């Protein structure tokens, strides 16, 4: 525990860390208190007030159905996080477990799992997401699952790689020579040592999940209306941009703000928790690859 506290203190000591922390904290706060702080019902339609410019009543103006842009962005924060967190965590749990087994047990299991992961990896995640959502239909749950599915092979690959490199560590050989079984080695010795670098990845993937989700919604395959999803807001704003650009301003700022905040926090965390990851290795490549999609 004190290790954790120390990490937090060291993170806050860096400007990037404290800014990131502040943004993430603010984001979480907004997400939790959305109904309290949003000035209007995000779904309340007022055709008379369509495309209003910012005013005292509507700080960010109104959209094509006269809804309050600010309120929609605020509620969108909550939605973004309620999709991103479960998506990343479930992908992480599944990827970690299977990657661990693939990396440590090896053999046929490894080959099968790797080929499956590679197959998923050979699609751009947006295309994969579009195709899958077309198959399963649009809902918050499906979006979450699709994002989890597109992230999961990276975790599998990553965990497998870590397990592979860790299994050759002397202490694993030492455990084997003591007679420790596979389960004991995997879960008591490999897992705790693989977690810290992987947790860094998870922290850095929250914004990726937000970005993928909003991207899918932007392309029209995200969560169904009237959910004020950021991607949906961008979509609707873009469609009507010739009439008013104001509906775009809120979600654009929100996405930049939140992803930058999480990235700052994640990178600081990475630098502190696992300096080995700071340099460019194949692993950083992997981070990037995921970010890139």
């Amino acid at each position, binding site marked *: 525990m004190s290790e954790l506290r120390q990490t937090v203190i060291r993170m806050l000591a860096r400007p990037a860390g404290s800014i990131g922390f502040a943004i993430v904290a603010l984001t979480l706060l907004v997400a939790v208190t959305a109904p309290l702080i949003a000035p209007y019902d995000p779904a309340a339609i007022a*055709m008379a007030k*369509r495309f209003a410019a910012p005013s005292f009543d509507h700080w960010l103006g109104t959209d094509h159905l006269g809804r309050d842009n600010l309120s929609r962005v605020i509620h969108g924060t909550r939605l973004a996080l309620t999709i991103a967190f479960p998506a990343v965590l479930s992908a992480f749990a599944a990827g970690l477990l299977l990657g661990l087994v693939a990396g440590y047990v090896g053999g046929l299991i490894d080959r099968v799992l790797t080929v499956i992961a590679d197959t998923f990896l050979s699609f751009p995640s947006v295309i994969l997401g579009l195709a899958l*959502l077309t198959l399963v*239909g649009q809902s918050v749950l499906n979006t979450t699952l699709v994002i989890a599915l597109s992230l999961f092979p990276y975790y599998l690959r990553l965990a497998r790689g870590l397990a592979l490199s860790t299994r050759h560590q002397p202490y694993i050989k030492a455990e084997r020579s003591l007679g420790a079984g596979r389960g004991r080695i995997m879960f008591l010795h490999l897992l705790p040592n693989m977690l810290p670098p992987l947790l860094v990845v998870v922290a850095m993937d929250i914004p990726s999940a937000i970005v993928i989700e909003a991207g899918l919604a932007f392309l029209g*395959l995200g969560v*169904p*209306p009237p959910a004020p999803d950021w991607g949906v807001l961008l979509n*609707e704003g*873009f469609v009507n941009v010739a009439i008013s650009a104001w509906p775009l301003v809120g979600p654009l700022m929100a996405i930049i703000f939140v992803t930058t905040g999480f990235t700052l926090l994640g990178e600081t965390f990475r630098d502190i928790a696992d300096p080995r990851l700071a340099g460019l290795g194949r692993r950083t490549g992997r981070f990037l690859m995921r970010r890139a999609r």
Partner: protein
Amino acid sequence: MITRRNLLLSAAALAALRPLGAGVAWAEGTTLRFGPQLDPGTLDTLTNVYDYPFPPFSTVYEGLTSYMPGSEWKPVNRLAETLELAADGTTISFKLKEGIQFHRGFGELTAEDVKYSFDRATGKVKLYPDAAEGDVSYYGGDFGSYKEVQVTGKYTGVIVFEKPFAPMLRLTLPYATSGLIVSKKAMEALGKEGWLKAPVGTGPYEVVSYTPNKELVMKRFAAYGGAAGQDAKSYPWDEIKVSLVNSSSAPTGAALTAGVESGDFDFTYNISPLDALRLQNNETVKAYVLQQPMSYNFLQLNVLHPKLANPKVREAIRYLVDVPALIQAQDLDVATRLNALIAPQMGVGYWPKAPVYERDVEKAKALLAEAGASALELDLSTPAGGQATAATVMQVIQANLAEGGIKVNVLLTPPDTYIKDKAVGQLSWSNYGGAPDPFYQFEWFTCDQFGQWNWAFACNADYDKLHEELAAERDEAKRTEIAIQMQKLMDASLGYIWVNHQVACAVTAANVEAAFDPNGNPYLQYFKKV
């Protein structure tokens, strides 16, 4: 789905702000350049996917009658000199104009060609002399109970039906591609392959070349017989080029209008309303907003679904829906409200006293309370595709109903069963295309349309019977009476909430004046140079 289509269109909106490039080139010579336009699949009158009098069908072929440019829904004779419906409604006798020539020297039009064309449409003869399996007419249904054409002379004949079929005069002959006349001689000479490459009709323009998904070139038919009562030489175009695209790579939005804006095309059809609005301020082009009174948007309520089975619930929904807001949400301030299925422009079947339901949330709440429907949760979707604005409209409906305490889930990708299974579909935002006969308009709401187009699952034996009568009745006043009765039944079923007529938009170069039929379809040969 719908939002995405919208998204692609929206690029258009942005182009509004795009600075204009080099000066727009003016239409040159006497070629009319039209496009990009969706490829019709084939140029055959019976296997194309248009099924309405769209170029090239309205330029290459002619029917016995046709509608004329303008807004009047009155068929005029084209190939027919006279056309007469018998008193019992089961026969139509016609006399063709004499001396009408088919393209490429395939001879004069005779009653035999009419017989062949109609037999072919209804599958009484093979589609081609060398037809393969699967080569069938798509549009046999347009001919009702067609029996045969009795050829009584070189130019005369009688169309015989088993039962009276009134829509023949308003729909099949003047409007549907299936009613167009093809050359029997040419068909026999050319065979399937030759026909599909360059079919032969009597229209003012003949096919020069057709490259699927690329281009269709037509030239003035020198020997045009002037079936339309007009010498083809008075049409300003020596040549018409249609740029064809595959639906998968069809440009949208600004990419669609860019051609006309840059001078590459003289005419582009089916642009988005926002583009049309934008281009109205552009002096180098002319934008058109066209009423399509035969096409209509409305909400269907599945009366057989347990959640909607109580009429009070459906009535409440009718009071909750804010129709003017729905029209506004489609960016169509130009669209007119629809109070019943048949538009006044139809000329027959219009119900002037159709009730106009104003929004009344309190009344709706009361009705819901009476029905004991609390915490109602309904699905809303646009099955089988829809217009670009469907998602927006559905959000308004969603918000409208929310005010009455009904939670609406919008399904952007509805399951297959949404329209097939009466226990699945609930509210359906519907964008239906139509045709100029009440019979056709009412067709989708009969009992045997369950699982097809009757998404309200409202089935009424009286309605179906009236529908049959409508086919048989030739007297317009009586038909109107029947139609009003049917619309009353629809109103009483509480399965439909009428919203608006559809609108189509197009753009031409400023020096071209476009012409459209009463449902907004372009008539290329009537386009003028100014």
